[in-house]
């Protein structure tokens, strides 16, 4: 009887063990789009509280027809934006997606994203886990402010 209860509890808890989110997205926001611009980007700090490296491989949102992972690299004086296949969040560490660096790029937007709106975004990880986030749309200086506080 007792064994059965334990087995049952174990069975019930198993899905939770799998669903445990080792990766947490902090200070997430999407760039409010200036007039004429046709793209936006999502920025966040991804914290990995687990003991294994985790890898972000894709993201999607109904607000954009296409979503890509991108990085900005500086080669000499020239800034280059390039698509990357994945973004690794090392175990017990974090990766900052921010303007001028790694970011989630949004293309084919249904409409111009304006400050105050919220979009939903789903992140997909290499282990098959998916995570859905509510992403507020902010102007970059406002989105960055929260990060500044975290550093002081």
């Amino acid at each position, binding site marked *: 009887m007792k064994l059965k209860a334990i087995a049952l509890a174990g069975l019930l808890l198993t899905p939770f063990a799998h669903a445990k989110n080792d990766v947490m997205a902090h200070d997430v926001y999407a*760039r409010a789009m*200036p*007039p*004429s*611009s*046709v*793209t936006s*980007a999502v920025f966040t700090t991804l914290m990995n509280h687990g003991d294994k490296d985790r890898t972000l491989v894709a993201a999607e949102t109904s607000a954009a027809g*296409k979503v*890509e992972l*991108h990085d*900005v690299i*500086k080669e000499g*004086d*020239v*800034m*280059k*934006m*390039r*698509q990357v296949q994945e973004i690794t969040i090392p175990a017990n560490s974090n990766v900052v997606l*921010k*303007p*001028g*660096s790694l*970011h989630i*790029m949004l*293309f*084919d937007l249904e409409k111009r994203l304006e400050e105050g709106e919220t979009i939903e975004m789903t992140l997909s990880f290499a282990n098959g886990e998916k995570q859905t986030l509510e992403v507020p749309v902010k*102007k*970059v*200086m406002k989105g960055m402010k929260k990060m500044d506080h975290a550093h002081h």
Partner: protein
Amino acid sequence: MSKNWSLILVVAFALGFGVKTYIDEQSNAQKTTEKEQAIANTTLFGEAGKAVSIFDGSDTRVRVVYFGFTRCPDVCPTSLAMMAGALNQIDDEQKSKLRPMFISLDPERDAANASFEYAQYFHPMIEGLSAPLEVTKPLAHKYGVIFRKTELEGSELEYTLDHSSYFYFLKPDGTLITKVPHTLTPAPLVEAFKSVTSAQE
């Protein structure tokens, strides 16, 4: 006799060479002055397509110029956000000595008013300007701006413009005072704003 001939030949050659060098230098100098003259007279277009003479000497403010394009996915909007952030951190007196501007290097897609609206979105002080490439290219080259089109295979972007990202601080006549490299915080701009406005009396 043959010695004299040689001497005459040498002298003639030297004379000819000297004259040629002199003429070349003159025409080069003239070309340079023409170029400088053209830059001094640079006319771009801004709000509602209105012509703006950016090096008009009667305006004594320090020009703070950023070259970019409105379709720029990350680097330009980030830079203009930093410029706006920095402008919000200085006082009115310092602001009155600065003339920040955004100059589009993608006139095909950025009409004058589109550039204006784009710049205004970041800060009401930033003038947005555009002009045909034959006007903006020599200007950008003068300060060492790099812009090149790169095909991006497999990406939705298809192509992008790889470019350098500096804020150029210019005297009213276009002479470079200093330049601030691409930054992800407003701090270096705030510092430059303070130093150029305190130097300018």
